[in-house]
Structures are given as C-alpha cells and as structure tokens.
C-alpha cells in the first residue's frame, strides 16, 4: 500500500460547506490580521485559507495593556476584540482582501444575536471571502455575560439567525470552557452550521507577583499555544462523535505531527494561531508533514486521514476518500 501514490499527485483539498480549500491548513482568527504582515516574511499562499480577526458591528478599542503574556509552552492574551467595526472594515479593509493569495474566512463577533446576523449579512460579496466563522465566545449581553458558546440554545440562536441572512457557509467556533461540548456542537449543527471550529482559547489568569496584580489589564485572558493541545485534541475527539459536519481543529499546532493528531481525532482541517508568532513558515512545515504522512500511508486524499484514530468518528469522509481508509489502523483502538 505504501507505494500506491508516491508518484501520483495528492489531493489536499477539503470542503467546508460549499467552500473548497486547496489544502486543510488555515490561519486562525486573531493571529493573522488580514495577512499583509505575514506576506512580508512567508508565502501565505500556501495556507488553504486565512481567517480574519473577528469583526464586530461597532468599532472597538479593545482592552488596556498588558494584553499578552508568555506562559509555559503557551501565551495568554486579552486583546478585547480591538477592531474597526463592520462599516469601516468594509470601506478600508475589505477591498484589499482581493489581493490575498488564498481563500479568506471572515470572522464575526457580537454581543447580541442581531449583531451577529447583521455583521454576517454585510460580509456578503467580499472578494475572496469563502466562509464566515462565528466567534461565539464573547459574553452574551442579553444573558448576563454568559458566552453564546456555553449553552446549546444560545449558540443555536446565533447560528440560525446568521444562516437566515448570510449566503456564505457558516462555521461556529466553540470554546472549551464547558463540561460537555457534544450537546453544544449538536445544537450548532441542527441550527444549520456548515462546520465547527474548535477550540477557541482556554480561560486563564496570570498574576504579577511583584506587584500583586493580575498581569493582564483585563484580568482574564485566553490561553493558547502547545500547552493547550491535549485539551483541543480532546475537544475534537469528543465532538467528532457527535456531529457529521466538518471540524476545523486548532490549539497548539506547531508541526505536521501535531496537525495529524487533530485530523486523526476527527478534524477535516486544522488552524494554526499562536505558532505563527514563533515560526511564520509553520504552515508550510505542517503541510509538508501531512504530505509526508500521506505518502508514507499511501493515501491520495487528505480527507482520508480524518478520524483514523477515533472509532466513534461520526462524520463522513468525502466519498472518494472512503476507499483509502486503512481499516487496520483502527485495530487495537482502545475504547
């Protein structure tokens, strides 16, 4: 089997709803701005897509400083959704997206269901934008600050409202700070989500011991980077048994091996956030690692790697891919 495809071209493309990405490596929201900065230091066209920083209805100054802090094998951030708001974004930023040399996923954040729906609708028709990601981890103004992604009913409300008004495929982004992600993921799928991203940053706090104060001005921040990778793989593993829509796995991916953990757990694509801050070429290294794995296994379509380690994987691989799935790799899986 190992010889099967070593000479033939590999099919790296993946589908997120109606969007077809040339490869499954995505830049995570908030870590790539609009791509321009990284274009100076790497080849961003090798990303299957880049996700924009989340856009809100109104402009936001964001949190005071400090906003970031190094932690063991990770970082803590509390940017506070600084951004121009949808109007100014459409005027000043959206036109330049035509020049991004890969697909673009626009990220939408909001504090009410209506804000999500409004911003999502306005995102329609921007050149290069192939999907919308909903950052439902911001506190819900209508429900005493609980996040939309904390309850099945509230995430369903956001997804349903957006689906009614947006034409692009919709990705709901889940956060790990819940006791059970499965009902939340199911609610998002039932409300019409075309895919799910997981995970957003994990809540964390660091204390400045010298001054006996929280290190971040916002007190609480989001923990990201390799430190959280096992938490993120766990989230993908769990959700992969609960829904059939594609999953975009993220959280601490630094290498091809790391990305394969997510694919094998059940993700159809992966996103890289914090690791860009260390190595701007990280996406190319991750892609090369996945390609090497495919050649080693003799599989031709990247979609056939999805869920290989997870006997409860509920999603469907693309039809063409099913044949390439080596059944033997499931043998001995511990349940």
């Amino acid at each position, binding site marked *: 089997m190992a010889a099967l495809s070593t000479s033939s071209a590999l099919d790296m493309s993946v589908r997120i709803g109606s969007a077809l990405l040339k490869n499954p490596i995505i830049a995570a929201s*908030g*870590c*790539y*701005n609009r791509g321009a*900065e*990284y274009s*100076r*230091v790497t080849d961003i066209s090798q990303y299957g897509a880049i996700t924009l*920083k989340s856009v809100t209805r*109104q*402009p*936001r*100054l*964001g949190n*005071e*400083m*400090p*906003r*970031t*802090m*190094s932690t*063991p*094998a*990770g*970082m803590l*951030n509390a*940017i506070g959704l*600084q*951004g*121009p*708001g949808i*109007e*100014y974004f459409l005027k*000043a930023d959206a036109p330049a997206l035509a020049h991004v040399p890969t697909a673009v996923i626009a990220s939408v954040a909001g504090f009410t269901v209506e804000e999500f729906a409004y911003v999502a609708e306005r995102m329609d028709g921007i050149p290069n934008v192939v999907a919308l990601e909903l950052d439902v981890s911001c506190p819900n103004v209508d429900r005493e600050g609980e996040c939309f992604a904390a309850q099945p009913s509230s995430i369903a409300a956001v997804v349903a409202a957006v689906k009614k008004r947006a034409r692009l495929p919709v990705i709901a982004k889940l956060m790990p700070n819940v006791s059970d992600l499965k009902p939340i993921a199911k609610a998002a799928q039932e409300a019409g989500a075309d895919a799910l991203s997981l995970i957003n940053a994990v809540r964390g706090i660091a204390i400045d011991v010298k001054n006996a104060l929280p290190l971040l001005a916002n007190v609480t921040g989001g923990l990201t*980077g*390799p*430190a959280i990778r096992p938490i993120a793989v766990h989230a993908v593993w769990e959700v992969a048994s609960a829904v059939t829509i594609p999953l975009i796995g993220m959280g*601490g991916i*630094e290498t091809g091996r790391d990305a394969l953990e997510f694919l094998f757990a059940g993700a159809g694509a992966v996103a890289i956030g*914090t*690791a*860009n*801050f*260390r*190595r*701007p070429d990280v996406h190319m290294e991750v892609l090369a690692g996945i390609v090497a794995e495919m050649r080693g296994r003799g599989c031709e379509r990247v979609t056939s790697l999805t869920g290989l380690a997870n006997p409860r994987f509920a999603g469907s691989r693309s039809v063409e891919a099913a044949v390439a799935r080596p059944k033997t790799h499931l043998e001995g899986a511990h349940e």
Partner: protein
Amino acid sequence: MRDERIARDARAAQYVALDVPGTFSVRLPLGIWTARDGEFSVLFQEWGDRTRRLAHLPIGEPLSCIGPLGNQFSAPSEGQRATIVAGGLGVAAFWLLARDLKAARAHTTIVLGARSKLSIVGRDELAALGFDIDICTDDGSEGFHGSVVDRVRSRPPSDVLYGCGPPGMLRALCRYANEAGVECQISMEENFGCSLGTCWGCVVPVRRGCPQGTGYPKAPREIRDYDFARVCADGTVFRASDVLWLH
C-alpha cells in the same frame, strides 16, 4: 550574531525577533545594539524563560531571527543639537543612532543612567564611537546622583531628545519634553505576541489623529478618546507629543 542582511539594514531603534530554541514560546524581541562587518549584537539580561534559555545556548548555535523590524528614529535637522537619554538596557537603541549622528556630525550629547555604577552598560561601545558619556546613577555611585531626566533638566536645552528606557523614565522624559516644547522621540517596549503587527497585543494609547494610530472611527458608546498604535509595527519610535500616559 552573524547575519549580513540584518547587520547592513539595521537602523537606529530597530529590533530583531528571535526564536529561542526549545519548548514553545513566542519570539523574543531584542533591540539591535551594534551592527558592523556582517555581525550585530544584542544586550540583554535574564528576565525570564526566553532570555534565560538564550543566555544558556551553546555558542555557535544557529538561531532563527526576523528583522530588522520596526520604524526608526528620524535624524535631527541640520545644526540641531541632539541629546540621547538612555536608561538601563534602553541604551541598546542608541549605538546605531550615535553612529549615524557622528557620521552626520550632529552636535550630540549622551546621558546614560543606571541603578548604580556596576549596572552601567554600553558605555565603552559608545565611548569608542568618540562620545563623552554623561553618567547618572540612582544611588550616586558614579556621575550625576539622580535620574537621567533630572540630568537632562539640569543641562542646557537640546533641540531634539531621543529616549529609551523603563516606562517610568520615558514618561518623565515625555512630560519634560512636552512641557518644555522640545521635540522628543522615544523608543517603547511592550510584551509582544507576534512582533509583526498582526495580533494587536502590543498597543500604546496615542492621541487621535496620530498617523501611527489605527485611524478607525470612535465607537458610539466608547468613552476613551484616544487611538491605539502597535509598538511592534507602528513603532517602536513615537513622538512624545503623540503618546498618552494613562497611569
């Protein structure tokens, strides 16, 4: 460190972002100190994890290094008197500037401060460029007994001030410069995430209208009437008259 391009292109107040080998951490920003003959140097202290790991690297270990990054100090107009005001390791921003000012034959004074005599860094390299260094120490163990800003106040006024050092010092320097109506450029530091301008993790408040700010409109209910600029990409150099000190 050896890197032809960085050594050649480095401008005053620019920095590099180093990938310190080992377990994950975001890149470490360090100011470019000297730069010549295809090599450049950095000055650093063991603050925490990354600087400690850097200090313990075997000599000759290859390092991935992005740079030079950031904007730069603008040169004084002809005939202007310049004063360089450096606090502690902030001196790292000034070898390149001093070299350029020397080459431009600008009238330049260097005020260099530290906690005490033993913690003065950078003096020899700057002296080697042919400058007299005006030393200040907090404990009076050498030179002027007091802060660099006190020292600047006590000296004849300059036309342009260049500052780099701890936040308290920069704040005092800006206040002095703004009150005295003297042009002043400072190189700032913050915790960096990406070092490239994408993460918005390193902002400083600047007055609305500052060309380095984001320039997007004020939100309806936003009570703060300033803008943010990214130290990593819009700076590190800002004009004293643009920077707001909130605390």
